[in-house]
């Protein structure tokens, strides 16, 4: 049964609206490159081979391309995710053993609608309902690591291969790190009030009973919310990327952080952890550095460290976790990211 027959006229308008937006999206994506080549190369008369010309061209072309990708993918992902909810994820995880639970939690972390501002209530809700600590951690690691912004940008800048690789690596890290934390039996380092929290009242499934227009509206709202939040990071990232693209000497980064430096991945992670940014700020930079000859493993490790581990998130988690557990969490996840970085550098061609 199609959406339109079930919803009647408003449904038809909605379908036409979504279809129209999709056509406009494809058209814009398609004219982006020739338009800037024409405007900057012909109309403004800059030499696109020169540093200034290529830098300016890269900045505008990249900004529009990334904005389009973000809009499209955030919308689609939000509408799809509106069929899942944190409540349903918790119900699926209830009673699962560790191991199986970690795998399931990491996978559900990708598809569950979630934002890092809800990390603390979700943690309490999971643990107080009896979901094991390690399984909860697998969910909380996977959820920010594999997010729609990262996927949109990876697809746009690097294509489906590296995107799949990133997702597989992120899921593996979430599974293994959560499992290790579970094995270490660190429940004593969780703030006691978490276990004492009594869950009263009925549970509301936050996305049940939504109609198609509701889901589309959620998608549109989410595009606005995320773009408003990330655009400063994105512009700084693309700006830095453009500078590196146009001005950095060809072998500058490769000499210091290239394949031959055995510490490159380690340094990338150590630099990435305290750096507070998100996928939108880091990926344009990663793209420019990749052009300058840095290997993919080192760059993905840098990105994962920035996205998965950040100071503000640690401060948030401090409400429910004692410092020792936060330190263990950072160490285990960082170790996983470093291992993935070296593995990719070893198996991937340049």
């Amino acid at each position, binding site marked *: 049964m199609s959406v339109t027959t079930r919803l009647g006229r408003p449904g038809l308008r909605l379908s036409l609206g979504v279809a129209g937006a999709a056509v406009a999206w494809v058209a814009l994506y398609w004219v982006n490159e020739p338009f800037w080549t024409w405007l900057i190369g012909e109309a403004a008369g800059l030499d696109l081979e020169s540093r200034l010309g290529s830098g300016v061209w890269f900045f505008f072309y990249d900004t529009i391309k990334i904005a389009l990708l973000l809009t499209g993918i955030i919308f689609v992902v939000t509408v799809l995710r509106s069929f899942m909810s*944190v409540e349903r994820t918790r119900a699926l995880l209830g009673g699962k053993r560790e191991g199986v639970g970690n795998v399931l939690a990491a996978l559900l972390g990708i598809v569950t609608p979630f934002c890092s501002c*809800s990390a603390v*209530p*979700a943690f*309490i809700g999971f643990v107080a309902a009896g979901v094991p600590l390690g399984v909860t951690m697998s969910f909380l690691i996977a959820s920010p690591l594999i997010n729609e912004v990262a996927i949109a940008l990876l697809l746009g800048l690097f294509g489906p291969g590296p995107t799949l690789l990133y997702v597989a690596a992120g899921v593996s890290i979430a599974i293994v790190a959560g499992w290790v934390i579970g094995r270490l039996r660190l429940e004593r380092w969780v703030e006691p009030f978490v276990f004492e929290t009594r869950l*009263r*009242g009925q*549970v509301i499934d*936050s996305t049940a009973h939504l109609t198609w227009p509701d889901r589309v509206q959620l998608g549109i709202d989410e595009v606005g919310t995320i773009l408003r*939040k990330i655009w400063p990071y994105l512009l700084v990232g693309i700006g830095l990327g453009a500078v590196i693209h146009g001005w950095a000497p060809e072998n500058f980064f490769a000499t210091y952080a290239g394949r031959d430096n055995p510490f490159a991945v380690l340094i990338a992670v150590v630099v990435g952890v305290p750096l507070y940014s998100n996928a939108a700020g880091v990926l344009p930079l990663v793209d420019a550095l990749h052009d300058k000859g840095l290997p993919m493993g080192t760059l993905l490790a840098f990105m994962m460290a920035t996205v998965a581990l950040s100071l503000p998130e640690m401060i948030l988690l401090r409400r429910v976790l004692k410092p020792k557990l936060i330190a263990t969490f950072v160490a285990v996840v960082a170790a996983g990211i470093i291992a993935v970085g070296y593995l990719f550098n070893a198996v991937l061609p340049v």
Partner: protein
Amino acid sequence: MHIKVLGPGCANCVNLEKNTRAALASLGMEASVEKVTDYADIAGYGIMRTPGLVVDEQVVLSGRVAKPAEIAQLLAGR
């Protein structure tokens, strides 16, 4: 009627409070609106995705910012 807006103070919570007040105004209803920011209290209501809306100790909405019209429906039905 006593309304609680649950959330640690992120943009979504602020928007939900704004929409709730707009809904009350459109219905011409009087109600006290309280913000609950303590994580233990929020989790106690079973909310795992902020923001949440609680009317007379009953959770009526969680995980998204509803528009004033939808909140008005939720409130009018009580």
